[in-house]
């Protein structure tokens, strides 16, 4: 696996969920690493819910424009073909199901696809656009490290943190595995090189079904 960080590997796998012509919203954290690892030649427009379709990479130092930021409040650029949206139009677009895909971070995901990604005990609060994104977007992919820093599972039978949405996640991508959320629970689709099914299950509270086509994560 070379010296690539696990976050970069997750981003690289998540990039494979993005198809040519897609309109995609990326959450903060690992998802923001995805544009840099997309294959050349794809036309993908990134939406940021504060009001841009067609977000480009960060500007060169000194080129920042205070009027051009993303939903994480970072300075960005706009690609050719970009457009700007009022907040009401931006969220009508989100809630109306027009995005092809959103890739988000998570604190916890339940075996039914419940997502907790906005509130941690004892931290200042902010929902932002997370609840709207999961309520409206056709396909929700979660990218996260498989366990917490102290090794606790984040893929659970039930989320214990406040929910962002119920039954909203379609796919989880971690440094250990790619797991689909199905009607019958968690389906282990891909496994990282050098990792056993047993190791993934031990890092996962909810039971995994192993897909008959189980493959190695690239």
């Amino acid at each position, binding site marked *: 696996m070379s010296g690539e960080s696990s976050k970069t590997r997750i981003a690289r796998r998540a990039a494979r969920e993005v198809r040519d012509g897609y309109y995609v919203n990326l959450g903060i954290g690992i998802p923001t690493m995805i544009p840099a690892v997309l294959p050349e030649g794809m036309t993908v427009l990134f939406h*940021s*819910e*504060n*009001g*841009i379709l067609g977000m480009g990479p960060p500007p060169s130092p000194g080129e*920042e*424009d*205070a*009027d*051009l*930021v*993303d*939903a994480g*409040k*970072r*300075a960005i650029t*706009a690609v050719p073909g970009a457009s*700007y*949206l*009022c*907040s*009401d139009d*931006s*969220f*009508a677009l*989100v*809630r109306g199901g027009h995005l092809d895909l959103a890739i988000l971070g998570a604190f916890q995901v339940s075996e039914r696809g*419940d997502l907790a990604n906005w509130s941690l005990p004892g*931290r*200042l*609060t*902010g*929902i*932002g*656009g*997370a*609840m*709207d994104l999961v*309520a*409206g977007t056709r396909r929700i992919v979660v990218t996260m490290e498989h366990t917490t820093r102290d090794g606790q599972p984040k893929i659970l039978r039930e989320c214990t943190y*406040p*929910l*962002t*949405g*119920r039954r909203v996640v379609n796919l989880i991508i971690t440094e250990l595995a790619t797991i689909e959320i199905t009607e019958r629970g968690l389906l282990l689709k891909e496994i990282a090189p050098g990792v056993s099914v047993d190791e993934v299950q031990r890092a996962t509270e909810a039971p995994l079904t192993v897909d008959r086509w189980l493959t190695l994560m690239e």
Partner: protein
Amino acid sequence: MIEIFATAEEAIADVPDGSTIMCGGFGLCGVPENLVRALGAKGTRNLTVISNNAGVDTFGLGGLLANGQVKKILGSYFRSSEICARLQASGALEVELLPQGTMVERIRAAGAGVFGVYLPTGVGTCVAEGKEVRLFGATECVLEYPLAADYAFIRAYQGDRLGNLVYRKTARNFNPVMAKAARITIAEVEEIVEVGELDPEVIVTPGIFVKRLVKGARYERRIE
């Protein structure tokens, strides 16, 4: 009928204690910083503020919070404001957290003569607690009500003497929708131009929504 003011201080001079004020901007982007600064200097108290964020401690709404001028704030994301957390913890500030899209749809409803909307956002989460939930086909939705204000403080790039406004890039954000949802909308702009100078195809906020216009004295153009 629009009035054009020479200073932000004059434009907000009559805002009374206890007002509900919407404030445009996302983070520090597109914030009506001159109007907010003027309100801080005036010292108006007991305010209810509707704003996506609470600024940072040294800029935007942070100043009003630090002055103890705000009794309640409604918005979607307050993590960047230490002062907001501190005041909430001490009981000096009521904080109501809303999903961003629900917040903006409620603001739109207030401006659009819509008295209730059923939205799928937040069903099964804490923001739906105590609210009417109704099933539409297979989708559960929450009934949400309009969110209006006495005053809207908004920021645009250019405004003409009829109050028609255009914005720059993502500084647009909440400004156009809030402009429609208040009894009195006060717009600060970086430049006032003559009527006819703005292309009619490009005007985002028609002057009908703007009651007061002022050229902001200075813009910091900070990035959070």
